[in-house]
């Protein structure tokens, strides 16, 4: 539960960073919108109005977030374990970068192995194998059965 005026809470550093990011996004929207080239005859309410309004709103929200951070009124956060989360991000990155060359099944094997590792399941060669086989079955159902275009690699090309 958040009680805004708890004097014992200290200013929240991470929340300040959020306020800064929000302000940064607002500035980028302002800047990108201001360099738009507009046609000469222009409706009174053109394509710039909405982005400007959103950027203005984000600036106000950034100020509000900073105030909220100063008062420490963000909900308490448990300490976190970033290792597993990084494994998952790494697995996703691996799949994203490999899928065009290795095909859906093998690249997804990497994703599955890293995710299993994040949740403490191993060994990775085994989870990779399970993931690749499962992804291959899924690929077959979706690419052949449902005509979805999914990237094929050496493994997928084995079946005509």
């Amino acid at each position, binding site marked *: 539960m958040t009680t805004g005026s708890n004097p014992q809470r200290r200013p929240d550093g991470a929340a300040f960073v959020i306020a800064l990011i*929000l302000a940064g996004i607002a500035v980028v929207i302002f800047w990108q919108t201001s360099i738009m080239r507009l046609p000469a005859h222009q409706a009174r309410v053109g394509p710039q109005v909405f982005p400007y309004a959103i950027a203005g709103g984000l600036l106000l929200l950034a100020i509000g977030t900073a105030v909220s951070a100063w008062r420490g009124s963000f909900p308490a956060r448990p300490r976190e374990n970033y290792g597993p989360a990084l494994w998952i991000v790494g697995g996703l990155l691996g799949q994203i970068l490999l899928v065009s060359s290795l095909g859906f099944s093998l690249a997804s094997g990497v994703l599955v192995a890293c995710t299993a590792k994040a*949740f403490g399941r191993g060994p990775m060669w085994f989870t990779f194998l399970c993931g690749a086989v499962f*992804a291959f079955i899924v690929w077959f159902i979706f690419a052949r059965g449902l005509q979805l275009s999914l990237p094929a690699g050496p493994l997928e090309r084995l079946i005509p």
Partner: protein
Amino acid sequence: MDTFGLLAAGFAAALQWQNLIYAFIGVTLGTAVGVLPGIGPALTVALLLPVTYRLDPAGSLIMFAGIYYGGMYGGSTTSILLNTPGESASIVTALEGNKMARKGRGGPALATAAIGSFVAGLIATLAMAFVAPWLVRIAISFGPADYFALMVLAFVTVSAAFGDSALRGVTALFIGLGLGVIGIDLQTGQARLAFGIPDLLDGIEVTTLAVALFAIGETLVVAAARGGLDDDIVAVKGSIWMTMEDWKRSWPAWLRGTLIGFPIGAMPAGGAEIGTFFSYAAERRLTKHPEEFGHGAIEGVAGPEAANNASAAGTLMPLLTLGLPTTATAAIMLAGFQQFGLQPGPLLFTNNAQLVWALIASLLVANFMLLVLNLPLIGVWVRLLTVPKPWLYAGILLFATLGTLGANGAMSGNLFGLRFSFELMMLLGFGILGYVLRRFGYPIAPVVIGLILGPLSEQQLRRALAISQGDPMVLVHSPLAISLYVIAAAAVLVPLWFRLRGKGQVFSQLAADED
């Protein structure tokens, strides 16, 4: 034709055998995915959207109807057998349902939830079928300014009115609105905020954002949580059938839940979960067995479950008649319509009457199928609950990336000679955003709704101002628009007043988080 005739025609279409098969596949997949812990109805619908890509619009929407209702049923099973807090629609069900399951009455709890959902779904869908044409007749006369006011009201209720912080709710909404600006402006054809990246010209896909925020964000949150305790699943022991006593206590609760849930869902305001809280409070007040509340009272499952399903059917009303999504699930369904170039709204009812009525009929068909399917298959669903976490989340990520690739598999990115899918990279980026949002207590639904409703509201605003030649007074010209703004203001100010008086807990419990 009157409603009966249209509905009959809808049934004629829905009962064709291939449409029955679509509905069957939809409810089965929807239940199977919805039952998995950590997957709410919104994510179920988003993950399963790719399955419908290659079907014709009617078949796809029928399957969608099945997925939607199936996902709702699946979610209630999870919350009864597995006490999963954090998923707001099922908090109340878990309250009493999980207690019942722990006392060995899991079967009756599941049964009253399933039958209650059926009763509520049936009444609410029929109510929608009869109220919607009437609403469409009114909506036809709405001007752009009225629509804009309606959307402002939806924005306000989705982001600011509920949840524990209006600041964080509105921030989430503005992130969504900002993402909605990206891409080519529909009226002038100019690129906005595309940073010269061709992939951004088409704008950001609602499904990519929703899948990323819900699936990847959630996975990261679970993985990063310390301890990683495995939730214990309560086995279903004893008879799954309800006793006479259970029936007697359940049916008034079902009807009350439906009466409470449907209007709340049908209002152009956010938060379908609110009905479940009201229903729980009502049951608690009216029960003859107050001592059982908190220890597994069957009314406490029957009422909220009915309310939940009734409001889920209710949210389809603003979606279909006004094109106004008020939950994340509805936003994704709107995206599902848009992939076929269909824009829900009053015109859909006149131009695609056949399709709309086939959809409404298949909702009823799906509802019936679920009743027949679910009780006998409870054992199968329970087994799905026991999928170990590593495999469960690996599977969620696998299907998240599969859906994204299936929607847009262009390998347009290039990093050190490695070609990659820009869409997948966005999926990862938004997934990390979802993690940060959750970690800092931001609600997710406003982001999704902002993305899809932002461009629509901008269109209405500019249309209104173009008609008035730039005079902003047009926005408050009609009595309807004025009253909508008044309601919107009240929706912000009343909770604020409560919060200032230290009664904020009530509203933080009403957080419209998950769907």
